[in-house]
């Protein structure tokens, strides 16, 4: 589905002005410091789409993912699923939300109970949520394993997590995530801990689940190459210090990145081609250290690092506005020089 089409469909899950603010006490008699991990995010997820959420470490991706899965209650703002506010759901709607939104974590070892076999880990939710009859659970678990290409399934049933390779464990996580027939899966850096040679196969698996089961994916990463790979027809959302900086169709956004931060991010990505990579390319940022989220800069959060910053950037916070095909939160979006994936030699 193209972005344009989606406007007509109602989003499956919607975030309205969502903020998550952590409080941490520190220092002598001081007020607790407030960390805005996610600030005023508006964002919708449409059925069956793939959204890549990218940004530097600590910008709030995981927190945003946790909001979507319901693990983290937003400090402000509202999250609705199927048009119903999460805070106001009745028991049945809540059940449906719990089943509808699943997650896949980065560390596949930590995400599986080390004391339980794969069969135990996979059968429990099915049994608890009564997805199939009790006698069919075994069959179902085998099917799930086969779906995530762990064949023959019988070989994996009674293994403990440590007895599987990272790639296999990641597949088990996928199997668990789809076991409740979800509508959305939040995948938080699912491949960053997997060996390069195996990453693609996991990404391909996700893509196939997306296509065959029509599950929407939120793919959280800081690796733009994989983001681009998996969200080929979907959208990309770029976060910076808790806020969305740019969002739009992957092809269009990457072909023509508007936000200076995204441009910097793209410049930093090493391209696996020595001919391109060796072209000495500097990162268009004034400063390399991310400011602390505890006291983010006033105005545009990027301004101390942004080479294009001007006076108003220091005071006025830019809002997401449509520029060409994407939405960008930058005052000077239309003035910033175009940026190309292949640097001009």
């Amino acid at each position, binding site marked *: 589905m193209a972005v344009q089409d989606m406007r007509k469909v109602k989003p499956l899950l919607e975030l309205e002005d969502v903020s998550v603010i952590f409080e941490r006490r520190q220092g002598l008699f001081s007020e607790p410091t407030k960390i805005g991990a996610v600030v005023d995010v508006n964002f919708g997820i449409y059925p069956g789409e793939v959204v890549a959420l990218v940004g*530097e*470490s600590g910008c709030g991706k995981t927190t945003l993912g946790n909001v979507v899965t319901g693990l983290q209650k937003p400090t402000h703002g509202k999250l609705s699923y199927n048009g119903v506010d999460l805070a106001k759901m009745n028991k049945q709607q809540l059940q449906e939300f719990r089943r509808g939104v699943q997650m896949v974590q980065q560390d596949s070892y930590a995400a599986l109970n080390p004391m339980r076999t794969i069969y135990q880990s996979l059968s429990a939710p099915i049994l608890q949520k009564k997805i199939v009859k009790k006698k069919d659970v075994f069959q179902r678990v085998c099917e799930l394993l086969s779906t995530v290409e762990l064949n023959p399934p019988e070989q994996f049933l009674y293994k403990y997590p440590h007895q599987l*390779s990272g*790639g*296999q464990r990641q597949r088990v996580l996928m199997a668990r995530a789809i076991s409740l027939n979800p509508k959305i899966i939040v995948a938080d850096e699912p491949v960053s801990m997997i*060996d*390069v*040679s*195996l*990453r*693609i*196969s996991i*990404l*391909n698996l996700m893509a196939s689940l997306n296509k065959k089961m029509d599950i929407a994916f939120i793919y959280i990463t*800081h*690796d*733009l*190459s*994989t983001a*681009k*790979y998996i969200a*080929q027809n979907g959208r990309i959302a770029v976060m910076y210090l808790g806020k969305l900086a740019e969002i739009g169709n992957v092809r269009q956004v*990457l072909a023509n990145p508007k936000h200076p931060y995204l441009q*910097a*991010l*793209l*410049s*930093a*990505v*090493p*391209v*696996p*081609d*020595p*001919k*391109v*990579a*060796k072209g000495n390319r*500097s*990162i268009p*940022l004034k400063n*390399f*250290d991310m400011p602390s989220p505890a006291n983010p800069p006033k105005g545009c959060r990027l301004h101390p690092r942004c080479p294009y910053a001007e006076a108003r950037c220091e005071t006025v916070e830019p809002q997401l506005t449509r520029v060409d095909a994407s939405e960008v939160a930058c005052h000077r979006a239309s003035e910033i020089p175009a940026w190309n*994936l*292949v640097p001009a030699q």
Partner: protein
Amino acid sequence: MSENVIEVRGLTVDFPLRAGNIRAVNHVNFDIPKGKITALVGESGSGKSTMASAILRSVSSPGLISSGEIFYQGEDVLKYNKEKMQRFKWSKVSMVFQAAQNALNPVMTIREQVIETVRAHDAKITEKKILDKAKELLEYVRLEPGRVLAAHPHELSGGMKQRVMIAFSLLLNPELVILDEPTTALDVITQAYIFDILAQIHEDMGTTMLLMTHDIGVVARFAERVGVMYAGRLVEVGDVYSIFDNADHPYTSNLMKSVPSLLSNDDLQPIVGSTPNLLNLPSGCPFHPRCKQAKPVCKRVDPVMVETGVDHLVNCHIHSNEEYAREQHLDLEEVRV
């Protein structure tokens, strides 16, 4: 051919475990040419770090170097006595560790550790001299020397610690700096930044560097020469361009093809199968179960390194011709298919 800082010959490192023996490095021959940046790529567990630590004779227990030689200036480092080794370490070859976060003693300040390190090699040098040098280097890696020296490691961010480690590695002007995945735990932008600094150092000082990584992009950007490791073996070595453009080993070429890139939009093909279990390696060429071009001989016989181009070596039966087969006493039939 240019001069080599280190020449590794037939290096084998074993980890005898209760469950069996792990041969983490298997008869590796490898040169590190002076003044160049050489990269070693390979999946996790392929033996990169073990090789690095073997060069410094600091394989973690229960590992032991079972055979091989490591030549530095024509002398075998493995035969050095304790004192000589002590002098060799860090002043000739230094290292930036894979887990730089944990490479500093948490209860000592950076300053104390700097002084301790230098003093370990030269007891007479004055503290001022040491600190001057340290300050210079810290500035070089774009840190505030005053603040950093007084800090305990936990007060620094990951990127800062990594830069401190880089400064550390240059303290004694070593001939070779081994960089063991210096940026794995870091962000893209920080990573780019660190490599920027490293490139600068390389340019300014001409320091020889050996980079261990599994990030193909980084290799493309930074390295001049590339070695590819698989299951403890060095399977291919060559110039960075030739490795990327016409890799001779199926593993290398598959690897190159399975890396997503911002530049391409193709669907990628993963390398089939799973990573080898070092405790239970397949016979013959360890890659053969995953290799589409495998011949019968691959199942049976371990290939040997052959030269396929200028300064390009590969360890694969694909390139074995009749002459090779004869030399190795192989059945021609097997080799041909």
